[in-house]
């Protein structure tokens, strides 16, 4: 049986429950990739419904269809050029007016659409009542009330979607009309555009031209430069008459339309008692209490992850190494056996030992915090601090990710608005001690010198990030962006969405990092087998022995550390022939060794992530700088600590 195919796109603002609907509709049949040539995520899934195979596409959460961000451009081009059979505009019922701004733009794009009026339960609790029928009549588009988190209304949504696609329900979207002055000019331009035959509807092009949309301007210019010239004249006329930019006027009028619709369809009766969510919100963003609560909750998250992780890692390790004799009996202990076990398999196992017990729960907790709305509160509280290093509150999120693993943290810097901020944030995240580095800090310094020294290293690390971040911010040319973000209401995290998110991050990590870990693990094993490690240690000795005061073989372990940071400790134990480091290293040596490991290059997987996001040159700059900085800091620490006689 050949199935009829359909494409439906989900579009809407951030935090409206779009991905919950997407997950609900597509279940496990999902594919997350990137838009061709862009760093914007593209989530696609399939669904079978009433004899159709429906391809569902989850567009990025955006607030507009202009071209100031890649996400917006991608979404607009997709809707206008690839023309899905239907767009489902997901609207947050509790923030109707602001959400309608986007709906109006979709209507202007003249795409077939219906509306999912989501989070109806939240709206109700906040005292927002919406006359759905009236809203439907004004917009001329079917509106289906939903509570996606509970799966309510989604069947009706799909049915409505098919009714519209199959033509059983006729839609007659309202016309978005502006004030007389602007309207006349839109008509004039639209008439000219009609002849030029563009990918977008003429009226839409006219509005965007008046709004000064560069991308549309370029496209129109190719077709007919006369139109652009006329538009510029018309824009100047409007601006001279009103004293405000044409863009501002159009946006204001569009907002006014959304405001009118909202006033007609929405009744707001604020509840007398503050809701639970509101009380939690008040406490967690309290000017004094907010900070200790933040610190305690983050520490609790880290502590529980590392405690549970340690235990789980121990179990897994026993399991994997239990197979070693079996492999040795199969492959022998010759060179080939050593390469396969020690190179390929051990690389793989070690990757899993960090990814499964530490990073997976870490992501999970982080996405729970994000989905509940707490991360936005942290961004609010930390904005001021982040500004000191040229970033804003949102950058705190990739920095947090960095404590789990630097690779996804670097990729996570995409949430920043500009290239410069992405780079600054990525630079800062590579200095954050990830799970592997934490193993060293606690396994060496924490275990053999004292926990307070380990914590001290964390403080030093924060200080260094602050100073270096600030330096980079001063050196790099460009302008910082201010924080503009929505404060979502607190809500119960949606388990399925959180699990999906965790899995996709983990998958991304495995794709980027694992091949490199395994290949380089093999390469280093080759060096070892061929006996080149000794000479390398000798070459490095001026740095390791003379400047850093470490045993010569430490140089070898630092090379291994490039693969994965925790290998430095494992190798140190192997090469020194003991795990009781107190016998072979002085406390100062331990501190120096840990400091160097903490700061010198992000591991090979992080470098790969940096290359992917910023290109070779910038990845190299960060790498070289951090090696030099680590060696410098280590040497300075040695001299300082010796001088102080600690």
């Amino acid at each position, binding site marked *: 049986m050949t199935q009829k195919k359909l494409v439906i796109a989900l579009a809407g603002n951030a935090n409206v429950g779009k991905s919950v609907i997407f997950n609900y509709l597509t279940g496990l049949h999902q594919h997350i990739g990137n838009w061709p040539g862009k760093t914007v995520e593209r989530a696609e899934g399939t669904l079978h419904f009433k004899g159709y195979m429906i391809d569902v596409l989850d567009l990025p959460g955006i607030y507009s269809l202009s071209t100031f961000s890649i996400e917006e451009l991608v979404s607009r081009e997709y809707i206008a050029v690839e023309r899905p059979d239907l767009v489902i505009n997901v609207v947050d019922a509790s923030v109707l007016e602001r959400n309608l701004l986007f709906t109006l733009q979709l209507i202007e794009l003249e795409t077939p659409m219906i509306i999912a009026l989501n989070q109806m339960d939240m709206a109700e609790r906040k005292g927002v009542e919406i006359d759905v029928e009236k809203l439907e009549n004004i917009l001329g588009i079917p509106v289906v009330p939903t509570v996606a988190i509970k799966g309510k209304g989604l069947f009706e949504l799909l049915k409505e979607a098919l009714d519209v696609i199959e033509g059983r329900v006729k839609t007659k979207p309202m016309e978005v009309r502006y004030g007389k002055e602007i309207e006349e000019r839109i008509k004039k331009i639209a008439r000219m555009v009609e002849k030029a035959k563009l990918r977008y509807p003429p009226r839409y092009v006219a509005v965007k031209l008046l709004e000064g949309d560069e991308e549309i301007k370029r496209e129109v210019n190719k077709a007919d430069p006369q139109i652009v010239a006329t538009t510029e004249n018309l824009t100047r006329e409007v601006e001279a008459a009103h004293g405000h930019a044409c863009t501002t006027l159009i946006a204001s009028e569009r907002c006014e339309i959304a405001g009118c619709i909202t006033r007609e369809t929405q009744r707001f009766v604020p509840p007398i008692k503050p809701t639970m969510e509101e009380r939690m919100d008040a406490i967690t963003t309290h000017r004094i209490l*907010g900070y200790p609560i933040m610190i305690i909750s983050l520490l609790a998250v880290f502590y529980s992850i590392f405690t549970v992780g340690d235990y789980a890692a121990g179990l897994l390790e026993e399991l994997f190494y239990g197979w070693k004799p079996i492999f040795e009996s199969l492959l022998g202990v010759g060179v080939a056996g050593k390469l396969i076990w020690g190179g390929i398999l051990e690389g793989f196992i070690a990757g899993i030992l960090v990814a499964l017990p530490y990073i997976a729960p870490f992501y999970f907790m982080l996405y729970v915090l994000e989905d509940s709305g707490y991360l936005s509160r942290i961004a609010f509280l930390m904005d001021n601090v982040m500004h000191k290093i040229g970033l804003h509150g949102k950058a705190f999120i990739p920095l947090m990710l960095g404590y789990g693993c630097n690779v996804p943290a670097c990729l996570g810097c995409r949430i920043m608005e500009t290239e410069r901020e992405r780079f600054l944030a990525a630079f800062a995240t590579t200095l954050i001690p990830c799970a592997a580095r934490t193993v060293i800090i606690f396994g060496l310094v924490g275990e053999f010198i004292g926990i307070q020294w380990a914590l001290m290293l964390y403080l030093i690390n924060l200080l260094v990030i602050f100073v270096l971040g600030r330096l980079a911010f001063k050196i790099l040319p460009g302008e910082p962006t201010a924080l503009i973000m929505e404060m979502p209401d607190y809500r119960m995290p949606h388990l399925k969405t959180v699990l999906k998110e965790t899995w996709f991050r983990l998958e991304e990590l495995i794709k980027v990092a694992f091949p490199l870990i395994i290949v380089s693990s093999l390469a280093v094993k080759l060096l070892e087998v061929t006996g080149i490690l000794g000479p390398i240690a000798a070459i490095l000795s001026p740095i390791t022995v003379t400047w850093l005061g470490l045993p010569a073989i430490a140089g070898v372990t630092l090379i291994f550390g490039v693969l994965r940071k925790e290998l430095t400790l494992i190798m140190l134990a192997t090469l020194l022939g003991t795990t009781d480091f107190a016998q072979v290293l002085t406390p100062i040596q331990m501190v120096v060794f840990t400091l160097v490991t903490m700061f010198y290059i992000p591991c090979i997987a992080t470098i790969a992530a940096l290359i992917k996001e910023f290109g070779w040159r910038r990845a190299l700059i960060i790498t070289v700088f951090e090696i030099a900085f680590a060696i410098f800091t280590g040497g300075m620490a040695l001299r300082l600590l010796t001088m102080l006689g600690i």
Partner: protein
Amino acid sequence: MELPLTALKNGESGIITSINIGGEGRHGMGRQFKHHMGSRYHTMRLEKRLMDMGLTLGTKVTVLRSAPFHGPLEVNARGARLILGRGMAERIFVRVER
């Protein structure tokens, strides 16, 4: 009375009369911000983002609270709760009845 958004007390509302991102804030707080505000594209982009979030001329904005240590402001505009960096909030001027 026309005031920057940052001059409003918690719970106070005003109507947006101008958004002056290209210019200077009236108070010293946005200094770190000021010298970076050069490029026109950047300015347009920020203004556009504000408008997309519903902060246009004539919009009623209520300040809900501000983060400590001169941190960002939380405001309500068009039924949505937004967080605005202080440097940004300083450049949004509102008419207040006092």
